[in-house]
């Protein structure tokens, strides 16, 4: 007669409720960011437009405060900053150039080093491990200083003179820690591939090289992308260190602007201006990372 509607209650199986002392720690290379796992998202992905609003407000408040306390017979601060902007932008572009090239070199070298770290050959494995640990443990600034002073300013190879300007030395100096970090990222990604993949590849008679190149590494790309983008953002911030060793990038140019102008109250507005540019650069990258991550997310 009547069909009784039996309400079916779906009991959501929350993995957190399975009894365990501790949940198995998820590696930071977990691909799919669930809604409640904001903590696992890379830092870049969590930049919001509101942070730019905060930065701009800090800049304008400080500029206004400096203007009020400054002298009346000098050109207004906003106008001064506006006049110096093209000059500073060139410096900022230089920062970006350094970060691109450094990242490219560091990634290439780090990939090679990372694969060497899982080699079956003990000397290769040991030496690449030592190299990675050494460059990971050295302060970036000291490595930069080292490269600036130790590398020659030009090398002659059989009649060709290759000039080595300062910024190339800074690029090499920055690519060394990048190389070490990329090597660690790759090693971590390869280690997170289940051993079943290696075994089945071996049983299908792939050589070791083919296993790594055709089977393991393609699965790693997606896992490596978030930490890699994270590293790029850290590198972009670190290009500012090149100013300490004399490269003409945005921080040292800002220092020259301050010296040319001579007003101490210009310090905070100029630096917050430069900060705002770093933010404007990182924000679209963060959004891009988020999009790429969603696109490549593995369904687990």
């Amino acid at each position, binding site marked *: 007669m009547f069909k009784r509607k039996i309400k079916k209650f779906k009991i959501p199986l929350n993995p957190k409720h399975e009894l365990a002392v501790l949940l198995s720690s998820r590696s930071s290379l977990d691909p799919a960011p669930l809604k409640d796992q904001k903590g696992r998202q890379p830092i870049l992905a969590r930049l919001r437009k509101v942070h730019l609003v905060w930065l701009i407000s800090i800049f304008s408040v400080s500029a206004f405060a400096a203007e009020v306390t*400054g*002298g009346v017979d000098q050109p207004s601060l906003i106008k001064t900053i506006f*006049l*110096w902007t*093209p*000059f500073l932008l*060139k410096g900022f572009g230089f920062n970006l150039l350094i970060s691109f090239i450094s990242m490219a070199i560091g990634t290439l070298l780090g990939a090679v080093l990372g694969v060497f770290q899982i080699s079956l050959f003990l000397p290769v494995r040991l030496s690449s491990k030592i190299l990675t640990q050494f460059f990971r443990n050295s302060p970036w600034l000291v490595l930069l200083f080292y490269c600036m*002073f130790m590398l*020659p*300013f*030009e090398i002659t190879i059989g009649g060709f003179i290759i000039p080595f300007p300062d910024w190339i030395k800074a690029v090499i100096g920055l690519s060394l820690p990048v190389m070490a970090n990329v090597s660690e990222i790759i090693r971590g990604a390869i280690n997170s591939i289940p051993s079943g993949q290696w075994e089945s590849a071996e049983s299908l008679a792939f050589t070791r090289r083919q296993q790594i190149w055709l089977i393991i590494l393609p699965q790693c790309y997606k896992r490596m992308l978030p930490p890699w983008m994270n590293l790029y953002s850290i590198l972009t911030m670190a290009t500012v260190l090149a100013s*300490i060793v*004399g490269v*003409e990038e945005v921080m040292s140019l800002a*220092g*020259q*602007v*301050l*010296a*040319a102008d*001579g*007003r*101490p109250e*210009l*310090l905070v507005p100029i630096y917050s201006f430069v900060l705002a540019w770093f933010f404007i650069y990182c924000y679209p990258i963060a959004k891009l990372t988020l999009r790429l991550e969603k696109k490549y997310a593995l369904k687990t």
Partner: protein
Amino acid sequence: MSFKLFRALLISFFVVCLVSPALQADVVDDIKARGKLIVGVKADYKPYGFRDTSGKIIGIEPELAQDVADMLGVKLELIPVVASNRMEFLKQGKIDLMIATMTDRPDRARMVFIVQPNYYSSGINLLVTKKAALKKWEDLRGKPVCGIQGSFYNKKVGQEFGAKIVAFKGTAESLNALKQGSCIGFVYDDSFIVAKLQDPQWSDYEMSLKTIDDSSWGLAVKHGEYRFYGMMSELTMKWHANGRIIELEEKFGITPTPFAVNMNKRYSDKK
């Protein structure tokens, strides 16, 4: 004389004639072949070398560099240097000439060829707050003094007078720290301090101590460049005789230093 000896002498004479132009190929020839003179100058030290809004380096020293380029009949390229790399660049050949507020000291003369006579001079003094009422340098014992990282007089002021040197990267940071009160004074070249004191916002500060270590600055060329050295030495003497240094000082708003005035008198008399 035997014929063999004569032949040997003749051949060696020809060899020397062939080789010596190559031996004499020096930086002046390189500059002329390049069509460009590369000079290292400061870009963060007003008024000796600083930037204008278009990014060009202007100041007393770039103007002197332009004079050198005009003398050689080539174009000028300015490369910004800082104290830590100016001698290295010259030694490596990255710059042909260095006019970068470098004090003439014997340990530096060992590394680069400093042109005599010196083109400028300045001593060290202290931009100090009036409240401190300092009378002599020894009053600085135990007090924090701002300075620039890498200045050679930091050690002297720190060791001899017992001041605590707080060194920053650039003048902007040091002046800011001084304004905040983190240090009692700013130790730097007296010409810079005199220029700063003309600014009304520094009216609470004074330069009450005696200028010490009045040492002359030198232009430098690479060791071994005798021809270039000779040309620069002559040019410096001409600058002093014509009053070019005094003219540039007045152009960039500093009162002519006693050194410049003395050298002008000395060399214009010699004329």
